[in-house]
């Protein structure tokens, strides 16, 4: 199947500052993630794909066309940027009407779609409010609503759950997953490993303007949990002498422990640990790992 997005040898610079260099990327139906620290070039890549920036070298093709020169292509895409990009002195509905009209939608369709999406995000009550009166999180919900107005085939998002409370963040994740069930493409950028591991998606790790790894959630766990520590919480305490017989045991600070530390060389070791604990008659409540900083992520 032809990729909706295909980027070849892309280089983008701002003056002498090279933001992206030699980027090769192609999307897959479903969730595609660009992961990288601040300044990696994630947002710039998204804007190149949306046609906001013209590449210095290389090419960007969306549905086989150049997004920088094909205005009509934009009706099939949507971009939710890190800035909510709404008009502060207009109401939520006025913002939606404006953007909806530019997508060629009828007013009643715009109103229906707005109510539907804001309802899903638990933000219907703000439909008549001016944007500047809203909290940062609510603005983010409204911006997502705007991004979904045109029912895009490709949805691109820059840190979509930043500034959101847990409920709203989960609502956005659910919305993204529903979107992908229609075989559409979601491409989002983030610097949060925790966000990435919530999806079984294709992950591109970007650092200093270059792609350093293209992987999957499983592959990312392989990197994350290589020679690292995990903490296991159990419901029934385990004596220290018994705990020492569990493979990979690395310590605890209790004689009869409900919180144990293990050093694993792979995520597969976790199954061995939990299997042993179950055989000992205890119950695993949770397995946590210390998430590395994205800057320290070994790829």
């Amino acid at each position, binding site marked *: 199947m032809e990729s909706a997005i295909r980027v070849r040898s892309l280089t983008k610079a701002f003056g002498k500052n090279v933001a992206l260099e030699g980027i090769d990327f192609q999307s897959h139906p479903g969730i595609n993630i660009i992961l990288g620290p601040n300044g990696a070039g994630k947002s710039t890549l998204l*804007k190149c794909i*949306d046609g*906001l*920036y*013209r590449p210095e070298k290389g090419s960007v093709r969306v549905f086989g066309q150049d997004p920088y020169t094909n*205005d*009509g*292509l*934009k*009706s099939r*895409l*949507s*971009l939710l*940027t890190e*800035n909510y*990009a*709404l*008009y*502060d*002195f*207009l109401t939520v509905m*006025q913002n939606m009407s*404006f*953007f909806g*009209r*530019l*997508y*060629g939608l009828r007013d009643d369709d715009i109103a229906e779609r707005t109510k539907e999406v804001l309802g899903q995000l638990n933000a219907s009550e703000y439909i008549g409010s*001016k944007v500047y009166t809203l909290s940062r999180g609510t603005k983010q919900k409204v*911006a997502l609503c*705007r991004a979904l107005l045109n029912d895009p085939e490709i949805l691109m998002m820059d840190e979509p759950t930043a500034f959101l409370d847990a409920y709203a963040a989960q609502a956005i994740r659910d919305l993204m997953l529903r979107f992908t069930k229609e075989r559409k493409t979601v491409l989002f950028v983030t610097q949060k490993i925790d966000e990435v591991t919530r999806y079984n998606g294709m992950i591109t790790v970007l650092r200093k303007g270059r792609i350093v790894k293209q992987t999957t959630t499983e592959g990312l766990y392989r990197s994350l949990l290589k020679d690292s520590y995990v903490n296991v919480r159990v419901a029934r305490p385990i004596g220290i002498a018994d705990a020492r017989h569990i493979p990979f045991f690395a310590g605890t600070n209790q004689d009869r422990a409900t919180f144990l530390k293990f050093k694993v060389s792979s995520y597969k070791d976790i199954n061995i640990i939990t299997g042993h604990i179950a055989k000992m008659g205890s119950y695993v409540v949770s397995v946590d790992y210390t998430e590395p900083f994205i800057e320290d992520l070994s790829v």
Partner: protein
Amino acid sequence: MDFSNAYAIAVKDMKEVFSSVEIWGPMLGVPLFFSLMLPLLTFYVTRYAAPNIANKVLASTVTASGATGFNAVFMTFFSINVLGPIFLTMPILTAAVIAADSFAGEKERKTSEALLATPISSAELLVGKIMASFVPATLLTVGVFALYGFVTNWLAMQQFGVSILPTLPWLMMLATSPFLAIVTIGVVVWVSSHVKGTKEAQQISTLLVLPVLVIPFISILGIVDLTSMFFAYLMLVLAAADVAIIYLGIKSFRKTAIR
């Protein structure tokens, strides 16, 4: 080009401008103040200082007006030749304020990211934003001229028993304002693509008022007569500039200028 998209952009920009008292307050307040205070100044000068000033004004300039009677002639001269051009700064200032907010403001507030992600063309964006600045600037100028004319006439009727406005040169002066507005918007578009924010765009663009403010001086000195023919020539020059600006603008304007 889809005019409905340009219209939607223009309506959105106007709604934004008139939703913020910080923008429309000074934009309406200053012209209103001028259109009330300047006729009073005209009246005061005519009533108390005219004889001394009149000696210094060239006869040919004074006789350009059609009024009769010293006071009426002088008040007509002062209203059109000295204070009239001040009102020609209104389309420039208003268009500069709105256009700078419209073009550079989108960039500054980063709303351009969402706007440019829609399927609008560069021509639709440019025409929409020109309309958003042109319509309020022109309507405001017409309103201000009307109010200024009304107050001036009322004072003239009360004191001298004559109605002195409108005259043909005064109406021709008013007719040049839409052409001035378009020139201003053209300059703002160009400036906005080279600066980071609204303030820089406004400050540079409002320099356009300087040539207009020279008009009263060259009129008093008798270098030019502000006749109907003068304004007809001025309109021709401005119209040519407008055509060039719109043609070159649509041809060369890129949406990314507001990015």
